[in-house]
């Protein structure tokens, strides 16, 4: 079976994000595969180990996203498509989905996996939009995925409001990964060394027959006016005194000031 995994390059979650002139400073940031996408990659690899087939990574990102793609190949994916064109840049979730959907139209797949959201902008909508554009079924935030014996349908477990929900879908479908789906592996040294020989194909807007006016910054419906760091949290309040008086004071504050009880 062919599994396509949508991966996004995001700043390392350990990075201290700097903001200058209303924009995120990208110099010196180290980049990773978005953690939810890593679950998707891992799940794809496990499926292929079980059922045989091929894992293809699909990534929209600037030229140097290649390094992040290589990491995915080092983990064990077979090949990758890099949607690499300045025309794609400056877009939003909707234009990203348009480009990804156009790319998927050119590909053969039995299943598309993605992270439930990318940890940079946390839009949590790209995969859903892609599914809509391609008229594919879609299951979001999955923590367990099983395929039927004939590989024609998927059984997905999700956590919903503290309970569990089981969704069944025909395939092909777009399924997104939630934390808990699996524990991603480290790339093996052999995988890392072998990754440089695996093919990464570049596709541009023209390869996808896309009108540059509808994608990237020109197609985006969302305009980022400015980015500000979250305001510093006010310091916590220490309530002095012995336990009995402190507890009384705490209740009073929760009631009168915070108005939560």
């Amino acid at each position, binding site marked *: 079976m062919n599994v396509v995994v949508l991966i996004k390059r995001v700043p390392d979650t350990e990075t201290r994000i700097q903001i200058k002139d209303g924009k995120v400073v990208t110099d010196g940031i180290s980049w990773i595969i978005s953690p939810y996408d890593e679950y998707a990659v891992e799940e794809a690899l496990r499926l292929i180990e079980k059922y045989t087939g091929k894992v293809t990574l699909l990534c929209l990102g600037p030229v140097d996203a*290649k*390094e992040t793609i*290589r*990491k995915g190949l*080092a983990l064990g994916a077979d090949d990758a498509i890099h949607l690499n064109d300045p025309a794609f840049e400056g877009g939003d979730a909707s234009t990203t989905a348009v480009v990804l959907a156009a790319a998927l139209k050119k590909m053969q797949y039995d299943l598309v996996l993605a992270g439930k959201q990318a940890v940079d902008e946390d839009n949590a909508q790209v995969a859903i939009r892609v599914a809509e554009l391609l008229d594919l079924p879609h299951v979001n935030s999955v923590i367990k995925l099983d395929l039927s014996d004939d590989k024609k349908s998927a059984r997905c477990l999700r956590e919903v409001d503290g309970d569990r929900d089981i969704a069944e879908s025909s395939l092909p479908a777009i399924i997104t990964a939630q934390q808990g789906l699996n524990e991603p592996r*480290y*790339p*093996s*040294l*052999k995988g*890392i*060394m072998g*990754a*440089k020989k695996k093919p990464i194909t570049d596709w541009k807007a023209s390869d996808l027959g896309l009108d540059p006016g509808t994608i990237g910054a020109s197609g985006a419906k969302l305009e980022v006016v400015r980015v500000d760091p979250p305001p510093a949290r006010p310091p916590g309040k220490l309530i002095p005194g012995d336990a009995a008086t402190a507890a009384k004071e705490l209740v009073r504050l929760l009631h009168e000031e915070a108005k939560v009880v």
Partner: protein
Amino acid sequence: MDFSISPQHEIFRRTVAEFVEKEVTPRVSEMEERREIPREFYARMGELGFFGLRYPEEYGGAGADSMMFAIFLEEMARGYISLAAAAMMQCLMGTNFIYRFGTEAQRSRLLVPALRGEKIGTIAMTEPGAGSDLGAITTRAVREGDSYIIDGTKSWITSATRADFFTVAAKTNPDPKAGFKGIDMFLVEKGTPGLSVGKKIAKAGAVASETSELTFNEVRVPAENLFGGKEGFGFAALREMLNEIRVMTGALGLGLARAARDESITYAQQRMAFGKKIGDFQAIQHKVADMEIEIELSRLAVQYGAWLIDQKQPCNKEAAIAKLFATEAGVHAADEATRIFGAYGMAMEMTPQRLFRDGRFLLYGGGTSEILRNIIAKEIGI
């Protein structure tokens, strides 16, 4: 001239760093307490392909270059010197002879499982009476028919209590004039009659990487266990490995220095004195700046050494410099970290005291700083 690092090397660095953060760091205090490395670490590191880094794929290795090896050791040492030391033994000194000179049967019986972490190999050169002056060892190997009989005592042997096979330095030519050149290297397997492992040596640093004495009492090994197949060959083979040992020990020093620097920065930004963060005092800033200078220069020296090894160029001087400078940088940074931490620098629940103790380990094997200076001086003709 190109100082860039390939994406493969970067990905590997992160992989090792992640392994250290997730699987090693949480268990450091347990290992310090038990003074041993849980056996499962060997299997895990074998599984991740770490031990086979430098060996070809046919033995289960990855055929990576020295730069990759240096990155591995640096990241390991940044996390925990004891484990880094045991791993380096398994990747290099403990398995190198069997790879280079072992028979095919020995390789498949010992090397292949060692790279998977299922068997452990170590090297036994040092003796109670001879360390730097290896030519002064007294362990003897005497040919008797199709065998060699080995007699002698070794000390400071890493992982000896659990090793499955030993690469042993013994004199085939006892003439004192032959010195270093009278040494040959032998394969001795665990369980060979006459081989006994003595008690563990209690030590101040690298405590979880065990070291013990080893005695050979008429230990008989088949003649094919003489590495290289003929007498008088061993010392040159040993010499060939020395530069790699030195550069890679430098990589351990670099990792230790980074750990000390990172600890220092975090602490200096929190600890208050005289109404300021101690990191606001220039005296503290300069200590950290000095660490950074030595880290960057160590990195250059180690990478240059690794590159020369890969280019198969002579590098006696460069390897000696890399080991000397980077291990001293590690020791220096750890010392400064214990000062920046004030009394907490000595507190057993904090990290700097361990870095301070562990740093000492780097100063001896592969040549002491004094011996390395001798080599550097000799290399430049003085």
